[in-house]
């Protein structure tokens, strides 16, 4: 308080150590005020820099990824020729299954030719180049339909096929006429036809539900790839993490916090838990490979193993946050419960735990969100690759059949050669971010609504 001065110069009659006026700032006060202003400016600059980074990130992700949610489709009338699909004409399913997807190529070529003719478009393209506008997935789609509906053979059915990734890229502005000079997958003539088909309304860019629900696709047909199956993989992993990490983590924390004696052993455990929380996740992957796969012989690439590894990774986070929220419950609550004759366990389970629950849940959700975005440990237990191609059929299948996870799928797509996969990787990031933001918001809401402060 030594810098306080009198408001009028007349006060000079009272001798003061520093003198001067309250209104007129001394050099020292100015310096202090300037320092404070500078500090505030630094703070604002830091926040602004952070926000700018976030903005750049979000804008990049959204601008690069939204394309993945739209896809170009071609609507065609396809004549399911009996001569190609069921030579014997007896609709025997085994006979129909003998026709592979390669056998469907002539039918698709025919359908494209018919469509071009019907629309009165003149083109010099050969039938193979015509079919090149469509995705290679078209044959698979047709075969699946024919096997499910053998009675439709011989009829003309309307189908909505995916367009090939180059055509799709052309409509999205990723592929330009001048950039395809050396591209053997598409020619300017094909693009001319695409323009005409689009004008006729046969070829349209619409919302692509398959990207959200579908399975991964091979490098030959990036347009057919989707996140759905790997999303299920992530879901099953999170299920395992929740089912294991929450009970184990809470039990461990309650014991350590409420029952365990304070001695060097519990101190050691405490220090080790804090250390484990800082261990890089790849280490848990190596551990998982050694213990769960090589020693316990659990299947590779299985979400069960992925979940177990992520459980190990999440446990310290959950234990630390649970212990913190148990500590935050005032001792008076325990004392009151014990005072009216409750046993220690009753005091904990009836009074302390319910009050700590919001904090525990928040910690768990944040731990799960962390686990959801983890890729490194999954690399080692074989969950990265062309894996998410079979949707699980049952609970056991979901846990044990090979599957990928959302971040692993994104990583895999980012590595592949076709630029269409790159777009899908960004689209996948959007989906993953939506999950993470939702989970973190949920954690904040839970904390806000239910947390009690003393």
């Amino acid at each position, binding site marked *: 308080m030594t810098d306080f001065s009198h408001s009028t110069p007349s006060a000079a009659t009272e001798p003061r150590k520093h003198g001067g006026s309250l209104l007129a700032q001394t050099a020292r006060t100015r310096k202090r005020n300037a320092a404070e202003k500078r500090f505030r400016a630094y703070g604002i600059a830091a926040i602004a820099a952070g926000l700018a980074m976030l903005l750049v990130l979000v804008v990049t992700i959204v601008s690069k990824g939204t394309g993945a949610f739209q896809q170009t489709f071609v609507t065609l009338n396809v004549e399911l020729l009996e001569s190609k699909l069921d030579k014997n004409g007896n609709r025997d399913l085994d006979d129909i*299954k003998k026709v*592979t*997807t*390669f056998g469907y190529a002539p039918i698709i070529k025919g359908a494209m030719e018919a469509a071009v003719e019907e629309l009165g478009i003149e083109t010099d393209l050969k039938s193979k180049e015509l079919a090149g506008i469509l995705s*290679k997935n078209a044959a*698979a789609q047709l*075969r*699946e339909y024919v096997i499910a509906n053998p009675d439709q053979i011989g009829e003309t059915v309307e189908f909505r096929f995916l367009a090939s990734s180059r055509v799709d890229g052309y409509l999205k502005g990723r*592929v*330009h006429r001048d*950039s*395809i*000079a*050396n*591209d*053997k*997958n598409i020619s300017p003539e094909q693009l001319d036809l695409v323009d005409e088909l689009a004008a006729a309304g046969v070829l349209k860019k619409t919302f692509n539900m398959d990207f959200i629900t579908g399975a991964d*696709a*091979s*490098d*030959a*047909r990036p347009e057919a790839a989707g996140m759905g199956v790997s999303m299920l993989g992530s879901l099953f992993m999170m299920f395992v993490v*929740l*089912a*294991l990490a*929450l*009970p184990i983590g809470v039990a461990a924390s309650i014991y350590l916090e409420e029952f365990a004696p304070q001695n060097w052993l519990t101190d050691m455990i405490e220090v080790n838990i804090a250390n484990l929380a800082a261990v890089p996740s790849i280490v848990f992957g190596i551990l998982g490979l050694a213990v769960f*796969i090589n020693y316990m*012989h*659990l*299947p*590779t*690439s299985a979400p*069960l193993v992925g979940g177990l590894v992520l459980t190990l990774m999440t446990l310290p986070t959950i234990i630390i946050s649970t212990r913190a929220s148990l500590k935050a419950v005032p001792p008076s609550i325990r004392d009151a419960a014990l005072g009216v004759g409750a046993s220690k366990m009753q005091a904990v389970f009836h009074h302390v735990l319910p009050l700590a629950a919001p904090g525990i849940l928040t910690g768990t959700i944040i731990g799960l969100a962390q686990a959801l975005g983890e890729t490194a440990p999954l690399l080692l237990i*074989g969950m*990265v*690759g*062309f*894996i998410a*191609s*079979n949707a699980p059929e*049952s*609970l*056991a*299948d979901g*846990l*044990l*059949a*090979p599957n990928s996870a959302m971040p692993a799928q994104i990583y895999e797509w*980012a*590595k*592949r*050669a*076709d*630029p269409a996969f*790159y777009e899908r990787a960004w689209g996948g990031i959007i989906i993953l971010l939506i999950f993470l933001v939702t989970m973190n918001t949920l954690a904040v809401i839970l904390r806000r609504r239910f947390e009690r402060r003393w």
Partner: protein
Amino acid sequence: MSFVKLTASTLAIAAVSATAAAARDQVQVAGSSTVLPYASIVAEAFGENFDFPTPVVESGGSSAGLKRFCEGVGENTIDVANASRKIKDKEIAACAENGVTDIIEVRIGYDGIVFASDINANAFEYTPTDWFLALSDKVLVDGQLVDNPNQTWADVNPNFPAVDIQAFVPGTKHGTREVFEDKVILAGCEATGAFDAFKEANGGDKKAAEKACIALRTDGKSVDIDGDYTETLARIESNKDGVGVFGLAFYENNTDKLQVATMSGVVPSTESIATGEYPVSRPLFFYVKKAHIGVIPGLKEYAEFFVSDEVAGPDGPLAEYGLVADPELAETQEAVAEEAVMGGNS
């Protein structure tokens, strides 16, 4: 507490069904990231056309794949290893040690390795000699082996523009690196006469001379890329003077960003590789555990489907993606059908 009970019971159910579902019903494949696109195309088509589930294909590199392949026989080991090089004797021995004795080797076709730079950068017409002079640790100058003095491409070859040498080559864990060393650097080494100089310096030891030939300079002109081709592409996009080593299929998918250089005057394409004109190519393989045939449903069907004419033939989807079809495919098909193992039929 009901939540805990619920989770406990679900876990119990899961554990019971785990033992019931232990029998694996899909083929598991791992290995070379070069073969991965081809293997995934085949796996996808296999899943569509057969009543078996789609095989699972992991990547990780030829060596990592073969290592896992050789870990033993049984359901928790992989059935097929993809490789962008032939299996080594050392690996066969490691396999045998773990009881993996009957291995079926399947050659699926050939793959070209191309040299490409940014689409707007300078065009190059290379010979192996240029690459050796640009990247080798030591080169022959006036009959003496000296540390590589070349700083720009013009130093290497007066016909080239005077831009700094900056090459992105596959790291040593890639099968591609071996082909690059064998067919480009070593060829250049021999052509410049450096090979003989190295041989002399090592007392006539051919192996040591080869090793000296393929030692690349470490002053930052040559950068090892341990990731995938996408990383090489990103490096070239940020460094327009850079030249990268790619697989042909990768280049063909990114013709809007890359321009390809000729090697010894030949433009790389599936045709020029098939005829053998383009010098830098290598065969691709996959290896099947014979002991798993009949145990893992669909394994033999997968192998046969992979090399069938409609898949691996010159008009099949693999050729369309960038694989150079094997002219001796019929023999391979026969060998797969007979389940002929390496080192004679035992």
